[in-house]
């Protein structure tokens, strides 16, 4: 797509939006390329750098087999395939599977679900419907032919009843049929445009819905009676076609503006039928099967018109069905959902779809050829894995290969900006075209109004005409009655006359008493007279009524030209409308295409931007991750710093503690000295007081020597204490000095402690900062990783949507059921039994042709499927979406699991029996071989080493009986595993 868009940038836009340009402007070379290579080149041009890994060989065969035959390949086929070394191996196996009887069943199943969407069989026997589809598939009937067969099938012909199922099992409801025709034939679901233009989708108009409805309304189901072979009366619902009668409609949003619409295919022009008077609308009776209640076909058949349109213009049909076939093989359409094509839901690869549709049309809508080309493409054979998948971690890709990375990035940036400017130009173009469209629409609306007026005039005239017709019909009914009465009377007269005559004769011939004959004759004669007298009155009535009838007939015929004249006026307004319609439709188409192209650019840009954001996320993650060690290192160095400071502080604190204890010790020494000093001082005081009292006493006492002696002793004692005090004080001074010294030293250490603690606070802050940085960084990284994952998930689904990688898809319920039946050999055994039965019925000739053997194989498969139908139906009822859904959406519920685990027969089928796969496992030479059979037979791939080891360990030291049980458990476990449930 990149190339195309770049090419378009140089394009003259007005040319580009013209329809011619919608298709791929192929070079001659490209045209000569086979379709499957062109598919790949369309996909490749959209890839930018998104490449997928090819699927492993054996799993590729599994996918092909499931798609073309609904069942996985057998071990024998896998062996044969892996031994096949021819260069055109894939082509050969595609051909082989396309010739497989099961391919026909696959197509029947797909067509059945596409057309009937699991509606219950109410009016048509399922067997007959399947038979009709089988016949169509056997002769590879093109899809347009098949749909036209359905449309033109007649209700009075019992051999065509099966085809009528499309209508009958939609209860003949015109709305249901119109809706499903839009969805299934043309890929557009107009249901929401029934009562107004579609509220969300600008392309879907109410007139489109009613245009489609006009093909089917006012037909409906009606009961008819017939006698069966035994002569008993049976009732039957028929879907009869009635003459067209288009009802007026209005939008619920814009009441009062009335519309009428004849048949119109989606976004195409309206068709106008030439006017037919009400009494000339049906053909004379055409009902070979004498169904009582079946009506004659109308002269103007809208179904025939639809048939004509389908055969004339197969463009929209081929577009929608090429998309459906693609969806069958990829699990999703290029337009997806397959029935919602409009400008705002454009094809994921418009060129691809256009090319497919063109090729499909060129091949006369040959479905088998289309399927073949698609499965031959490389695109079909790719896996769901991206080329860089193995390097991915949770959606993040390390830009190891920076060249690849930066190229992709800059390419995407360039493309995004190109797309932005392209989108802007397209938007302007759309606006211009929208203005034109509005103008054309206004013009059309005006003409439409005139038509509605003319049409309602005609309705009135028609009512008057129908009144006259009613009168004429009544008068002719009366006349008929009288005519009949007259002829009855005449008949009576004749028989009475004859009676009278013969009585007369009898009387003449009879001898004897004839009184009773005479009496009888009299009565007869009287009767003759009385009847005779009544006849003239009746004859008069007859004449009057004949005249009245003629008059009524004349009045009707006189009114007819008037009616037709008014009809001619309608047809005049219609031809004006037709012109307006044509330019309206052209403007719609132009706007649709421009709008669609714009949406394609918008989508492409969105995906491009997604890639850009993902790539830059990856880059950021990468950068962050790269800077992670540095940040951690910084945090760690801060931690070391902190530790150092803390050690230092601890040393200081130890020192301080020492000082403190030293000081405490000094204080402890000081305290007793001080106490002693105090003691001494108090002693001195006491001594001094003794001394002074001795002095006082000595003056009073005569013999003072003793006192003096005492005094000098006291003095001595005082002095000695003073000496002691002085010496202690000296000690004290020394100690105080020492303490002061220690305190000084402590203060200086305390200073360095304060310094260190403030250093510590600083370092702690730093560390916190570093930690915060690391946390922030981790958070940033985590959110980037999430965003990376998100973008990658979107990128992956975008890539799946554009078929750049395969998307995972589940088996359909029917595929699942049949695959289980086939993997456990139940199905094969049925086929063999049926084949034997067929051979018994008509033994094959010795020189039997290949075709006839193939034919028998096909019949045997069909009979086997028919016999196993109830088993398959059980899967369908549990695993399928509801009635009327366009596809089987995947869902998983416990009741499915309960059915497989406890109900149903899956566990029984998993038991060894005869020559089935479990039995082969039991009979295998060794556990390795048994494991090979298990994985290759059920999952079409060899076991991984781990799986092999695991299984071997299970089989070790097992008795034969236990082996059987274990095999059964293992087979069952694989059958209900996720790998079996999905396509490879």
């Amino acid at each position, binding site marked *: 797509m990149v190339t195309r868009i770049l090419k378009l940038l140089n394009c003259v836009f007005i040319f580009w939006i013209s329809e011619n340009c919608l298709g791929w402007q192929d070079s001659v070379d490209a045209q000569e390329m086979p379709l499957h290579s062109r598919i790949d080149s369309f996909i490749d041009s959209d890839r930018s750098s998104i490449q997928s890994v090819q699927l492993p060989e054996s799993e590729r065969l599994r996918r092909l087999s499931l798609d073309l035959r609904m069942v996985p390949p057998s071990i024998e086929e896998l062996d044969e395939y892996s031994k096949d070394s021819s260069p055109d191996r894939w082509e050969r196996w595609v051909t082989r599977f396309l010739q497989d009887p099961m391919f026909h069943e696959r197509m029947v199943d797909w067509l059945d679900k596409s057309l009937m969407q699991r509606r219950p069989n109410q009016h048509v026997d399922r067997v007959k419907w399947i038979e009709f589809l089988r016949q169509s598939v056997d002769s590879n009937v093109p899809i347009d032919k098949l749909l036209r067969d359905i449309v033109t099938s007649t209700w009075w012909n019992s051999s065509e009843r099966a085809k009528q199922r499309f209508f009958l099992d939609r209860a003949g409801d015109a709305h249901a049929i119109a809706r499903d025709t839009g969805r299934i034939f043309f890929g557009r679901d107009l249901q929401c445009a029934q009562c107004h233009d579609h509220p969300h989708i600008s392309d879907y108009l109410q007139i489109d819905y009613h245009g489609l409805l006009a093909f089917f309304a006012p037909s409906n189901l009606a009961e008819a009676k017939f006698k069966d072979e035994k002569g008993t009366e049976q009732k039957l619902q028929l879907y009869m076609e009635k003459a067209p009668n288009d009802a007026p409609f209005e939008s619920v949003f814009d009441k009062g503006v009335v519309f009428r619409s004849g048949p119109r295919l989606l976004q195409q022009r309206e068709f106008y039928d030439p006017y037919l008077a009400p009494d000339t609308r049906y053909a004379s009776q055409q009902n070979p099967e004498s169904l009582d209640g079946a009506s004659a076909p109308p002269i103007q058949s809208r179904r025939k018109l639809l048939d004509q349109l389908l055969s004339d213009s197969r463009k929209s049909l081929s577009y929608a069905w090429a998309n459906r076939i693609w969806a069958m093989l990829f699990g999703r359409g290029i337009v997806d959902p397959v029935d919602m094509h409009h400008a705002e839901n454009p094809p994921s690869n418009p060129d691809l779809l256009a090319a497919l549709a063109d090729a499909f049309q060129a091949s006369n809508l040959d479905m088998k050829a289309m399927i073949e080309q698609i499965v031959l493409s490389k695109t079909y054979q790719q896996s769901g894995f991206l080329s860089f998948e193995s390097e991915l971690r949770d959606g993040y890709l390390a830009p190891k290969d920076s060249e690849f990375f930066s190229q992709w990035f800059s390419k995407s940036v360039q493309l995004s900006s190109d797309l932005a400017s392209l989108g802007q130009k397209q938007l302007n173009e759309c606006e211009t075209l929208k203005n034109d469209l509005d103008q054309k629409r206004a013009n059309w609306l005006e003409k439409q109004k005139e038509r509605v007026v003319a049409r309602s005039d005609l309705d009135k005239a028609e009512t008057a005409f129908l009144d006259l017709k009613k009168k004429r019909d009544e008068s002719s009914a009366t006349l008929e009655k009288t005519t009949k009465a007259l002829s009855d009377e005449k008949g009576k007269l004749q028989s009475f006359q004859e009676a009278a005559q013969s009585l007369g004769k009898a009387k003449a011939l009879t001898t004897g008493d004839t009184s009773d004959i005479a009496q009888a004759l009299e009565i007869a004669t009287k009767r003759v007279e009385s009847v005779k007298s009544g006849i003239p009155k009746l004859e008069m009535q007859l004449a009057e009524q004949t005249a009245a009838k003629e008059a009524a007939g004349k009045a009707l015929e006189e009114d007819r030209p008037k009616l037709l004249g008014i009809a001619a006026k309608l047809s005049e307004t219609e031809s004006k409308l037709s012109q307006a319609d044509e330019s309206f439709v052209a403007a719609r188409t132009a706007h649709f295409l421009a709008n669609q192209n714009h949406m394609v650019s918008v989508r492409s840009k969105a995906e491009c931007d997604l890639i850009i954001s993902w790539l830059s996320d990856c880059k950021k993650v990468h950068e962050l991750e790269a800077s992670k060690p540095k940040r951690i290192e910084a945090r760690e160095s801060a931690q070391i710093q902190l530790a150092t400071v803390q050690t230092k502080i601890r040393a200081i604190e130890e020192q301080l503690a020492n000082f403190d204890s030293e000081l405490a010790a000094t204080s402890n020494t000081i305290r007793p000295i001080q106490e002693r000093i105090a003691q001494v001082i108090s002693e001195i005081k006491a001594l001094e007081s003794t001394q002074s009292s001795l002095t006082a006493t000595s003056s009073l006492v005569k013999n003072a020597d003793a006192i003096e002696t005492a005094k000098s002793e006291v003095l001595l004692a005082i002095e000695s204490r003073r000496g002691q005090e002085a010496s202690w004080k000296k000690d004290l001074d020394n100690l105080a000095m020492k303490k002061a010294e220690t305190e000084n030293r402590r203060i200086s250490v305390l200073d360095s402690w304060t310094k260190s603690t403030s250093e510590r606070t600083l370092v702690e802050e730093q560390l916190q900062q570093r930690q915060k940085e690391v946390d922030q960084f981790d958070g940033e990284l985590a959110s980037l990783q999430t965003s990376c994952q998100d973008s990658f998930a979107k990128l992956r689904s975008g890539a799946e949507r554009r078929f750049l990688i395969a998307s995972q898809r589940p088996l359909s319920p029917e595929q699942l059921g049949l695959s289980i039946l086939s993997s456990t050999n139940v199905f094969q055994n049925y086929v063999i039994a049926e084949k034997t039965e067929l051979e018994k019925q008509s033994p094959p000739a010795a020189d039997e042709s290949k075709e006839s053997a193939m034919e028998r194989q096909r019949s045997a498969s069909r009979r086997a499927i028919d016999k196993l139908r109830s088993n398959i139906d059980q899967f369908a009822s549990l695993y399928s979406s509801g009635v009327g859904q366009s596809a089987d959406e995947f869902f998983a519920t416990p009741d499915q699991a*309960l059915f497989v685990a406890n109900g149903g027969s899956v566990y029984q089928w998993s038991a060894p029996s005869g020559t089935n796969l479990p039995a082969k496992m039991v009979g295998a030479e060794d556990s390795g071989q048994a494991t090979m059979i298990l994985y290759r037979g059920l999952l079409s791939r060899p076991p991984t080493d781990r799986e092999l080891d695991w299984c071997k360990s299970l089989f070790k030291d097992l008795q034969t009986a236990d082996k059987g049980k274990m095999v059964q458990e293992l087979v069952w476990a694989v059958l209900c595993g996720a790998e079996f449930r999905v396509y490879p």
Partner: protein
Amino acid sequence: MRDTAHYACQSSEHMESRRNFLRNSLVSTAAGSSLVGGLGYLAEGQAADTLKAADMRVIVFNMHGGLSQLESWDPKPGTRTGGPCRAIPTSVPGIHISDLLPYTAQQMHHLCLLRGVNTAEDDHGKGAYLMMTGRRQTAAADYPQIGSVTSKMLHDENRGVPGHIVVTPGGGGGKGNEAAYLGPKYNSISLGGSKPPPNTSKPEQITEESEQRRHEFRRRINEEFLSKRRTAITDAYTHSYEQALRLMEKRDVFDLSKESPKDLERYGDYDLGRQCLLARRLIENGVSFVQITHSNYDTHNDNFNFHIEQMGEFDRPFATLIADLVDRGLYERTLVVVLSEFGRTPNINLYYGRDHWSKAWSVVMAGAKVVRGAAFGKTNPEGTEVVDGQVDHGDLFHTYLRAVGIDSSQSIQVDGKELPIADPAAEPIWKVLA
């Protein structure tokens, strides 16, 4: 994509809406796109989780055949149309109901009568359709029933029990088809009487050891595959087997014999009594929606005797259920609805019967966010016309949803289409919502 479950779709409902996701993720980023409305995703993300956490439940009584409003919720004794039944006072002064419902009358203060229902549809099938879906039936479109809508919105799969159960008097065991475009996941599981859902016990011939082992094998085999490719599909699929095993463990939830004989006696040991007790058991054990059908009310003949019999069956278990829900604290989060496809004619026909009548009939709502002890809407004295508070099926449907906390104006995205969960032309009956 190895260890964490991270795939294309982020929502828990991804298994059925792959397409929606694509549209949402890609197109919504596209400027000017009108394709995606915002409403659709309300139901898929946070809003839905909040709702599931609110743990609301619904029980619907479907009075099959057409319950007579005159012999139940809106009696007209002593009038031309009243018939022989009387009206009795209830626990709410001023509100009288039929004397056929003496037990229910005592629970009136928990109930809300809607007496002005006019659905204009007298056909059984079409009437049932519009009452169950809130919309008139058309051939071109099919709508999901109340059970599918509420179980989608309310049920949490982790409870290990089904979200949508229809109890049928007969066989049961099948799967319903009520979900329309919501997808078969929301179809009902039907229970016959008190039998558990089908296939919920392992076949006899499989030994306990073998059973353990085969599931062990299954897990082991899956593990190997999922280590390579894990998606929404594979997750949902493998999970469904684990859910199945949980359901087998929870088999007792469906076993009525686990309830006491005394309770059985209170409810009545007959079909409807047992079904009501089962409904209580299911609601208590995490089932979000239970529908009980009581048949048959189509009384064209002998209307009165039939109603004496039918109402006689209904009255006691219904009243007991209401009382029990209140006692057990379930009432605030359980909506109970008694509906029918239509009512019955006021006019009594020649066979003492009443015929189909949808012009003026009654529906009962109770519990959850519904006002208590009220009668909303009124018919005229002979019950032939609604004179006040007229509502129809669409309004009722909105109201059921609102009553359990569901925004009934939201839409669901299916196949690229925005589908309103209730008819946008109708509205909730705000007056009956507390």
